[in-house]
C-alpha cells in the first residue's frame, strides 16, 4: 500500500519512464546551447531572445514540478493534480468574476477535493458520481443569496469551472490507480506539452493561413497540421512500447490515440483562448514568467485528460487488478 502511494524506488521500473525522463532532461540541457547558437548567429532579435530565455527558465521549474510528483508516487500525483485543479479554478474564478460568489467557490473546491479522495481511494463510482452531485450542489447553492438576478450566470460559471478543472483535470489523478500510471501520465503530459511546442514551431516556419483569427490570432493551420503529424508519430511509438500485448497495440487504435491527443489538446487551447477573448484579457494570470497564468500553460491538458482516460479504459481498463476502495472499504 505505502509502496503504491509513496514507492519512489519503483520510479524507473518501466523503460518508457526512463526514456522520457532522459529525453526531457536532454532537451532541457540542449535548449540553452541552441538558444546561444541562434543568438550568436544573429537569427533572433534581442526581444524575441529574451522572451525565449524567460520561457526556458520557467520550464526549468515547471518540468520538475510536473514530472516529479508522478515519479515520486501515487499520493504525490493525486495531490499534485488536486493542487493544480484548485489553482486553475482560482485563476478562472478571478478572471470571470465568479470568485465574488464565495459559496459557489466553496462547493467547487469541496467537489474537487472529493474527486481527489475518490482517486486516492480507487472508488470509481464516487469519482463518476461527483460530477452530477457537484452540479446539483452548485445549482442549489446558487439559490441561497435569494437574489435571482444573475442566478444563471453564477451557476453556469460554477458548473463550467467544475467541469473543466475539477472533473476533467481530475482524470489525470485517477490514472494513478493504474499499475502503469508512470509511463502513461508522463507520455500524456510530455506529448501534450510537445504538441504545443510543435504547433508553435511549425506555425512559425510554415504558417500563412490563420486557424481561427478571432479566437487565437497567433495560431496557423500549418502549425496545427505539423503538430498533428509529429505528435501522432511520437504517440504511436510511446504507446506501442507502453501497451505492448494489449488490444490497444494495433495500428488503428494507436493512430486514433495519437490524433486524439493532438487534436483534443489543441481544442483545449482554443477553449481557453475563447474564454480569454470573451473576457477581453490576454493572460489568465502572471504566475509563470513568459507564459502567463497556470491556465495559459495547462489549457491543452484540460480536455485531453478525460478523452484519453476513457479511450484507454475502453481498450485496456484503468486500474485493472489493483485494490479497490482502499480507505472506504466496501
Amino acid at each position: 500500500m505505502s509502496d503504491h502511494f509513496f514507492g519512489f524506488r519503483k520510479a524507473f521500473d518501466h523503460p518508457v519512464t526512463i526514456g522520457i525522463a532522459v529525453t526531457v532532461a536532454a532537451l532541457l540541457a540542449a535548449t540553452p546551447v541552441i538558444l546561444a547558437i541562434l543568438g550568436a548567429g544573429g537569427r533572433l532579435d534581442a526581444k524575441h531572445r529574451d522572451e525565449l530565455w524567460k520561457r526556458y527558465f520557467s520550464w526549468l521549474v515547471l518540468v520538475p514540478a510536473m514530472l516529479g510528483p508522478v515519479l515520486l508516487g501515487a499520493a504525490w500525483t493525486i495531490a499534485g493534480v488536486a493542487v493544480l485543479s484548485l489553482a486553475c479554478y482560482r485563476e478562472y474564478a478571478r478572471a470571470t468574476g465568479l470568485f465574488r460568489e464565495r459559496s459557489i467557490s466553496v462547493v467547487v473546491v469541496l467537489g474537487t477535493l472529493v474527486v481527489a479522495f475518490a482517486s486516492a481511494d480507487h472508488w470509481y463510482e464516487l469519482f463518476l458520481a461527483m460530477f452530477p452531485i457537484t452540479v446539483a450542489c452548485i445549482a442549489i447553492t446558487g439559490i441561497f443569496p435569494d437574489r435571482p438576478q444573475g442566478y444563471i450566470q453564477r451557476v453556469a460559471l460554477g458548473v463550467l469551472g467544475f467541469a473543466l478543472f475539477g472533473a476533467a483535470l481530475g482524470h489525470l489523478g485517477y490514472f494513478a490507480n493504474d499499475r502503469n500510471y508512470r509511463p502513461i501520465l508522463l507520455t500524456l503530459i510530455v506529448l501534450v506539452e510537445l504538441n504545443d511546442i510543435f504547433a508553435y514551431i511549425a506555425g512559425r516556419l510554415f504558417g500563412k493561413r490563420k486557424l481561427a483569427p478571432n479566437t487565437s490570432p497567433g495560431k496557423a493551420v500549418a502549425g496545427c497540421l505539423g503538430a498533428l503529424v509529429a505528435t501522432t508519430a511520437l504517440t504511436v511509438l510511446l504507446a506501442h512500447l507502453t501497451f505492448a500485448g494489449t488490444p490497444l497495440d494495433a495500428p488503428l487504435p494507436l493512430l486514433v490515440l495519437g490524433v486524439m491527443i493532438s487534436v483534443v489538446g489543441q481544442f483545449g487551447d482554443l477553449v481557453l483562448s475563447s474564454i480569454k477573448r470573451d473576457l477581453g484579457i490576454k493572460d489568465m494570470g502572471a504566475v509563470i514568467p513568459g507564459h502567463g497564468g497556470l491556465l495559459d500553460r495547462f489549457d491543452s491538458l484540460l480536455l485531453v485528460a478525460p478523452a484519453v482516460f476513457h479511450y484507454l479504459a475502453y481498450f485496456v481498463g484503468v486500474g485493472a487488478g489493483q485494490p479497490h476502495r482502499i480507505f472506504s472499504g466496501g
Partner: protein
Amino acid sequence: MKDWKLQPARDLGLPAEQRWRSLHRENGLLETITQGFWRVLTRGYLCTYHRLSVSGREYLPAAPPMVLIANHASHLDALCLAASLPSALRERVLPVAAGDTFFETPTQAAFSAFLLNALPMWRKNCGRHALDELRRRLIDEPCGYILFPEGTRSRDGEMLPFKAGLGMLVAGTAVPVVPCRIDGAFDACPPHARVPRPKRIQVRIGPHLEFADLPQNRDGWEVVRARCEEAVRALAAQSTLIAQPTPQETKRRGT
C-alpha cells in the same frame, strides 16, 4: 433574463508582489479563509489578554461605504477596530496602513495583504492620485476603511492633530465617517514596547458624520479635519477607563 456581466478581478494579471501592494486588490476564497482564522485569533487575544470592551456598536452603518477613524497610539489599534465590527462588515472594511511600515519588504506586504487585508498608503508621496483611487473604491465597491488621520502613532499617548488627507477622501461624498476612540492601547502596547502588556483596552464608537455638502477644496478638507478631530476628542472625554496620566502629562501639570 439579465445580460451576463463578467467582471474580472480588478487586480487580475498583476504579479504576486504588486498585487499585495495594489489598491485594487480583491480577496478570493483563500484570503477569506486565512483572514477568518486571523480574526478569530486576534479577537480571542484582545478579548482575553486585553479584556477588550466595545460600546456604541449601534452607531455603525449597516453596510459600506464607511470610514472608521480613531486616535492612533499603538499597533493594536487597527486590530481593535477590526475586532469591534459585526461579522457582516468584517471582510468589507479594510485598514489603510502606512506603506513604509507594512508593505516595504515582500514578507511584510504578504502579511499585510493576506492576514490584515490592509491597503497601503505611502506617506512620502501620497498624492491626490492614490486618494482618488481609494475614494473610487470606497464608493464603487462599496467598501469601508479604517483610517488613522493623525498619520502616525502618537509617541506619548496624546492625540496629535489630524491631517487633511481624510478631507480629500470624504469631502463632497455621502460616505459616513464614524469617529472611534481607543483607550488603553497606548498603555498596552506603546511604540517603544517590545511585548504588549496585559492592560485593558476600550473602544468607543460615536455617531457618524457626513460631509456631502462640503466642497472638494482646501476649505472643505479643513472643515472635515476639524470636525472629525473634534468628534474623536469628544468621545475621549467620555472614557470610563481610569485615566492614567502619562509622564509628559504629569510633567505638564507639575509646571
